[in-house]
């Protein structure tokens, strides 16, 4: 049983890493007061670009870099439409998702034939990976998983312990208050939206270069939406976002890990049920915090989704 749980948790951490990156990216975007529902599209483009560039250059790190650039550029498109032109953020984000899924399918069609590219290498941490239970769960992974480990405390530190973090929280809560204190609200919002896209691109590439090293149309299969849900589930906190992501990862891997049990194999419809769990979990999380004013108490940035224009009177 311990072996089984260890396996589930280890694969949860590994599988959850891609959604963790995307969640952290959306978390920064929303903390700045901008809603970007284009995560799924940005992840798809990241996954396709990462896989394609790796195939062309033979270097998975080049693929990762390209995925981050493409994710950031897609997010800048959202920033332009939603912040500069002040279009409805929900619509702009949804459009970005459709753009990402369509574009990645078209541009990625030659890549479907490609079976093999170099993937991000796995590196068991010397000694630490030998620790029973904890070793396999935490210290026997590919490099991207470790980058995720490092990123979470860094994000936390940035948000809660730096001047920039204070400004970030202010522009998401009350942009007018930040503005009169001399903070450049628009510039910061654009930068955070772009950063969110960079992380979403990284999340997508994590999937195509480390987890299921392949490209097929719609590879992300809703994980971008899960990231949007996880940001809320996490109450806009990076530490909770990490636990949420790994929990999602574990749930996602459950159907595969359960194949080891005879009773599970004998009942194939259970597989569909467990396959549904991560998405059910997302819906329940979204529902819970959307009911009444739980959302506000849960810590939603007060200005989330609202454009800020200085000379709007009575704003």
């Amino acid at each position, binding site marked *: 049983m311990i072996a089984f749980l260890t396996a589930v948790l280890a694969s949860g951490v590994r599988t959850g890493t891609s959604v963790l990156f995307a969640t952290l990216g959306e978390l920064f975007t929303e903390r700045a007061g901008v809603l970007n529902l284009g995560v799924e599209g940005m992840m798809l483009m990241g996954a396709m670009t990462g896989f394609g560039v790796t195939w062309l250059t033979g270097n998975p790190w080049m693929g990762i870099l390209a995925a981050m650039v493409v994710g950031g550029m897609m997010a800048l498109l959202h920033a332009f439409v939603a912040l500069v032109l002040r279009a409805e953020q929900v619509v702009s984000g949804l459009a970005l998702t459709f753009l990402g899924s369509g574009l990645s399918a078209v541009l990625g069609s030659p890549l479907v034939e490609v079976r093999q590219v170099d993937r991000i290498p796995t590196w068991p941490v010397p000694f630490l990976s030998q620790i029973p239970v904890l070793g396999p769960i935490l210290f026997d992974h590919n490099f991207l998983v470790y980058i995720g480990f490092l990123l979470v405390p860094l994000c936390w530190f940035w948000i809660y*312990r730096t001047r920039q973090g204070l400004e970030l929280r202010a522009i998401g809560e*009350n942009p007018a208050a930040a503005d009169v*204190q001399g903070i*450049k609200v628009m510039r910061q919002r654009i930068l955070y939206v772009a950063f969110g896209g960079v992380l979403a691109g990284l999340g997508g590439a994590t999937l195509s270069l480390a987890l299921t090293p392949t490209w097929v149309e719609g590879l992300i299969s809703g994980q971008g939406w899960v990231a949007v849900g996880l940001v809320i589930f996490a109450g806009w906190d990076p530490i909770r976002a990490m636990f949420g992501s790994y929990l999602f990862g574990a749930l996602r891997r459950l159907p595969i890990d359960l194949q080891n049990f005879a009773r599970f194999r004998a009942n194939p419809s259970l597989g569909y049920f467990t396959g549904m769990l991560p998405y059910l979990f997302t819906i329940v999380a979204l529902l819970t915090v959307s009911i009444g004013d739980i959302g506000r108490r849960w810590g939603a940035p007060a200005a989330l989704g609202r454009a800020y224009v200085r000379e709007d009177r009575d704003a």
Partner: protein
Amino acid sequence: MVEMRGISKRFPGVLANDRVDLDVASGSIHALLGENGAGKSTLMHILSGLYRPDSGTMKVEDRAVSFASPLHAIRAGVGMVHQHFMLVETQTVAENVVLGDRRLGFRMDPSAIRDTVADLGRESGLEIDPDALIWQLSVGERQRVEIVKMLHRGARLLILDEPTAVLTPPEADTLFDRMRGMARAGRTLLFISHKLNEVMELAETVTVMRQGRVVDTVPKAQVSHRELVRMMVGSPVLFDVTVPPVQQGRKLLSLRSLRVENDRGQTAVDNLSLELRQREILGVAGVAGNGQRELAEAITGLRKLQAGTIELDGFDVTGSNQRRMIDLGISWVPQDRQHTGTAPNLSIQENFDLKRYRSARRGPFLDRAGQSSRAAALLAKYRVAASGRLQPVRLLSGGNLQKIILARELSTELRVLVAESPTRGLDVGAIQTVHELLMEQRSRGVAILLLSEDLQEVLSLSDRVAVIHNGRIMGILPRARAEADTIGMLMAGVVPEDMAT
């Protein structure tokens, strides 16, 4: 300290500032006096870098400046405390004070900023708890945070926009003391006000604005109350309303032990009982946010009662929805004209018909012909300045918008009128019209509940004055015994000794 020359600023449809000149001496307390909409706030937003002027030049401490953003103004030593506080509610006092301060390093040490802010509060006589979260603070405390915030950024000129608007009289007195202290310490204070009394009490120099222009700048010592009023309103206007003597009729509306919650689920109206008779105006005085809105929404059927009963003309109507309340003859003039009172993008004619389209119809269709003839009649009767009955109401000025609402509410078969701050933000002429309309309804037998922050208005119109504080009625005084100071104390939640029984 400040020299502004020929400042103009145009907003769509309004010339908010028209070639304004303003000089403020260093170390003085300078008042900017004028009615709502005179362009005071716009001018100060320009001086604090929030708006850019269309034309004109500014000098601060003898240096020519042009502020592209509030940051430039802060650097030049100009800080503004806005009327609507610019605070991040979910953050602590200390975090709000240091927000945007580039002198802070990359890493922020919570205990260091806490100490800095606590020290600054003590030095300036504005004691604040640096760890408190903004949403936990009272308005008076929030204002203190705003001032400390500007002092922290090194403001030598402090602009305060209507600083007493949200304060109780004792809180305002404390603020005045602090302001005098800061002026003695060498800072320059510039405050916006439309209240004569506080200008006379506090200011050394007064600049009066009217309709976007500066009327005059005068030392307070050389000007009288009456002269200032004349400058503010242009020509002497009678503030007194003629209250025709009427015989009050039977009891129309009784509220018994109402308890109503606000949007956050806190008790906003607490065990409140009131009675309202025919041909009576019952004024409810109180500082904004003491349950007035929730009370009005409870009476009009928009807000659920947690407890208590409402009786209309002897019948229990507790729990009726707003449609039934309308049918029963309860009219409402909400405080928020643009959104609650009217549908901004609909035409004047459609807004007039918002309450009667169900009865005045042709089969399943709207009665457009009837609509337009009714609208033409109402526009003429209420003398609304509009380009036509099909004009969208969002293009109307505040006064005309209020006339539209009154025309709609008063043209029904009404028995009770709930009027919430009906003259807020209107010019003198429009105020006069609204007051006359209320009086006319009173003579016709309507029972009027007048909820207003404007003490002068409540005192001049009401037959009885009730004071609301924290959702409770602190006391009810007949017109003859309603003195401004007594009411003021009650508004602050203090029961004067001669009333305590």
